[in-house]
């Protein structure tokens, strides 16, 4: 096979000779055929040291659906073999993982390997340059701009959120080859979703899920509207003659079953139901629409493919399993992120006892820069499993580290036992709760389902309502978590780019010297005062913090003690209030049902300890 120099485009590197040990590092020598992006990439990352971990990094490739603004791409590449393969993004159509069908040339084909399941193997980030042999690889310390900002199409192995019948049922799935969803009594493969844009609507056909055409993809927004313009004000019909005696419908359930057997589509059944309803004609237009919608949900369910993001994940949990996320509403979460000034290159200290929602949301906002340092009390890691629902790239996942609180506290002032620690022995480390690259198991094909349906007969709800139940059990990590207390005693080998691992000693040292740039505490079952007492000193001066709680008392107490201790300024205890509106011609009003509570937030800004720099 020819060496790299011959490859002007496409697969650019003969990987055969290159092997990595666990501590290999490469010098990043990025290049690009586009001068504009070249300069930028060089400035940010050219000379970064790149650590190649011995273990797979993350768990998904990020695939492009954005216009080819950059020539770099991230593609699946198994590192477990110790061999690096590089591909050019343009060889792969969107949403495709396998190179088989797209390589075209024999040279390319020679390295077109069937790719392993992305869930069982991690992928490093790979930068590909056209026409250059020197290539850049894998998790630089401060990465170049990602090729993909937001994937717009589902790919095999990604996490998706399915919204069945306008929010009646919301469930996360992973698009593994065997994944299915049960709708009514029908089990449908999720394969038709692969490669489809997020936002697509699917309906149920005899062959399973098929994309809906625009015409038959109603949404809650326009379904009621059609045909009602102009009639809204002179509506004369009302419900005076409506009697609820269960005789209005002339079709029996046997008739409907018969229709189904004859292969009638859901929409045809709905039409028949309307035609055979003796009261339909007397209903108001709005009422007719409601009737139609209700029957449609039952006989012609629609499945909306949604992209998991912190917004949709938080909304879904809040709707279906709010206790799991400590009753944190999406507006509260977004306030926490704003107040804590989360943005690229932040070093965020997080206490996440809301299942990983905050860690995931912060990681999303960091976009593969900075760090999320998730701390926990004692030796038991708090579960941050929800980050699996996000499609975090390996690079983003590598920015999540977990450190016991005791290590952080001893980092601040050696010998100190944190106030929060009662029983837990200091310095004891636990196994990481989450190791995303190992997360893929066949069981992931099972729906991680939060469905709580009103139409029990229609929808399968025998899935447990807790999304974590069907998560795979976690594989033990062969390397115990890095105990950072010893600082210099640790070698570089323990430097990890995986979430769930401790940060490198250098990183700990950096944080010790510079402090974290923000703090978010979301420990809804905990007393927060002692957390804040321990964690506030770890913040850099003038860094903002945001403390979440579902009860006001602990926050009030905490705020009061901060007022007295003068460690912080700009203290504010607040509660967001969110109301949704129905906006329809002549029928605009707040939703009849609203959520009255999304949690409290205590926020402030850390002050300089030495405090007073005075003029003499």
């Amino acid at each position, binding site marked *: 096979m020819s060496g790299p120099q011959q490859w002007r485009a496409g697969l650019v590197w003969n990987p055969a000779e290159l092997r990595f040990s666990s501590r290999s590092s490469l010098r990043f020598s990025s290049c690009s055929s586009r001068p504009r992006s070249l300069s930028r990439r060089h400035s940010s990352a050219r000379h970064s040291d790149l650590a190649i971990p011995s273990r797979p990094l993350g768990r998904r490739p990020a695939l492009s659906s954005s216009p080819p603004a950059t020539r770099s791409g991230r593609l699946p590449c198994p590192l477990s073999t110790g061999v690096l393969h590089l591909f050019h993004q343009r060889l792969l159509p969107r949403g495709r993982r396998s190179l088989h069908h797209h390589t075209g040339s024999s040279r390319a084909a020679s390295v077109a390997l069937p790719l392993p399941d992305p869930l069982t193997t991690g992928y490093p980030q790979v930068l590909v340059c056209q026409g250059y042999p020197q290539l850049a690889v894998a998790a630089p310390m401060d990465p170049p701009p990602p090729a993909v900002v937001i994937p717009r199409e589902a790919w095999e192995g990604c996490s998706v959120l399915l919204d069945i019948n306008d929010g009646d049922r919301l469930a996360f799935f992973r698009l593994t080859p065997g994944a299915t969803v049960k709708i009514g009594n029908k089990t449908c493969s999720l394969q038709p979703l692969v490669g489809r844009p997020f936002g697509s609507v699917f309906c149920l056909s005899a062959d399973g899920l098929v994309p809906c055409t625009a015409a038959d993809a109603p949404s809650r927004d326009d379904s009621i509207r059609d045909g009602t313009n102009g009639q809204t004000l002179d509506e004369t019909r009302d419900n005076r003659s409506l009697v609820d005696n269960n005789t209005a419908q002339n079709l029996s359930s046997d008739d409907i079953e018969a229709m189904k057997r004859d292969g009638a589509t859901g929409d045809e059944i709905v039409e028949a139901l309307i035609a055979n309803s003796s009261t339909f004609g007397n209903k108001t237009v709005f009422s007719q629409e409601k009737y139609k919608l209700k029957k449609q949900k039952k006989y012609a369910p629609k499945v909306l493919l949604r992209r998991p993001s912190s917004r949709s994940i938080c909304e879904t949990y809040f709707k279906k399993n709010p206790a799991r996320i400590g009753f944190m509403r999406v507006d509260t979460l977004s306030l926490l992120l704003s107040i804590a000034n989360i943005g690229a290159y932040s070093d965020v200290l997080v206490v996440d006892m809301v299942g990983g929602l905050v860690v995931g949301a912060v990681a999303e906002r960091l976009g593969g820069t900075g760090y999320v340092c998730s701390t926990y009390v004692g030796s038991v890691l708090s579960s941050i499993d929800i980050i699996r629902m996000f499609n975090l790239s390996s690079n983003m996942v590598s920015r999540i580290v977990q450190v016991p609180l005791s290590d952080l506290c001893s980092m601040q002032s050696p010998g100190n036992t944190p106030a929060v620690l009662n029983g837990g022995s200091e310095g004891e480390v636990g196994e990481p709760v989450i190791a995303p690259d190992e997360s893929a198991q066949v069981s992931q094909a099972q729906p991680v389902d939060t469905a709580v349906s009103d139409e029990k007969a229609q929808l399968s709800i025998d899935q447990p309502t807790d999304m974590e139940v069907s998560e795979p059990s976690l594989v033990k990590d062969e390397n115990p978590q890095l105990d950072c207390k010893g600082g210099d005693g640790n070698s570089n080998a323990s430097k990890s780019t995986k979430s769930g691992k401790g940060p490198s000693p250098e990183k700990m040292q950096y944080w010790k010297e510079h402090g974290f740039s923000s703090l978010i505490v979301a420990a809804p079952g905990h007393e927060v005062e002692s957390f804040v007492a321990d964690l506030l000193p770890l913040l850099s001066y003038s860094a903002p913090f945001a403390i979440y709680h579902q009860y006001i008392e602990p926050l009030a107490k905490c705020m009061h003690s901060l007022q007295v201790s003068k460690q912080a300024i700009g203290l504010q205890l607040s509660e*967001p209030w969110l109301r949704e509106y129905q906006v329809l011609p002549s029928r605009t009003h707040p939703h009849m049902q609203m959520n009255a509570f999304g949690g409290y937030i205590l926020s402030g800004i850390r002050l300089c300890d030495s405090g007073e720099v005075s003029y003499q």
Partner: protein
Amino acid sequence: MMVPLDPSDKLTSRRFIAEGDTVVVYERHDAMRAVAVRAGGVLQNRFGVFRHDDWIGCPFGSKVFSTGGGGVKGGGKGGKAGGGFVHLLAPTPELWTLVLSHRTQILYIADISLVVAYLELVPGCVVLESGTGSGSLTTSLARAVAPHGHVHTFDFHEQRAASAREDFEKNGLSSLITVNVRDIQGEGFPEEHHGAADAVFLDLPQPWLAIPSVGLMLKQDGVLCSFSPCIEQVQRACEAMRTHFTDIRTFEILLRTYEVRDGALKSATADEEATVGPLPQKRRKFTAPGENTDCTQKNSYVLVRPCSTARGHTGYLTFARRLVYDSQTES
């Protein structure tokens, strides 16, 4: 630098105030201002006279005292000869919202945070915004898309656009934000952003006029947000959205703040006095502990109640998603 563009300008790596920095001078919880530090500069306020030279080299988050003479009232409790003091904070988009000069009505933190979350902004995104106004939201948008994304913001008011541009320049955001002068309601967004925007934000008096153009700019599944104070505007905007958008949702968000203080309540059985100071009334709210020293009583409650004045309405936020192209007639 308010939003780091490089690991080296992250907030934690530079903690000391230098000449040329913008600092937020925190006087009280309701009195803050942005000040550009320059050698020989002087800040004069109700707490006294402050020399910038005294600030240079101090860490952000420091408490600094006036050079005497000034601060006659308030803040004197700190106890140094000079009298008054202030705190010097590093600017963030949230603080900027509180100190910027209002050239228009601005968005505040509750609305801003919801907008950023619902627009699903992450680093690298491209956002279009109109109008720019005073740049309150723009600053937060820039933080969300930094370091490699971009905010293209449009205002039809030339002077306002220039002032905003100046502000962004001062805050080190120029590489993230492009300010353009353009009447979006009249002309729509420029062709060059066709199909390139991850999200679009509209704060226009007649948003429905711009919505067809937004449909062209957004990537599929991209999110539009329209902010309007009046429900009639929302009504018309929603009408206009229905052709190319789905998942249209309208929200109103407010922030309820609470005041926290300590105090004791009289017992119903013992007719003794048990009060520690008067009940709420004129007492300071949830605020400025640095100025408050008289509140360490034993056996007293921590009392909480909502602040009695609050913002009653800001505006309605309508979010909508661009329909995916392939189930759509045209784009």
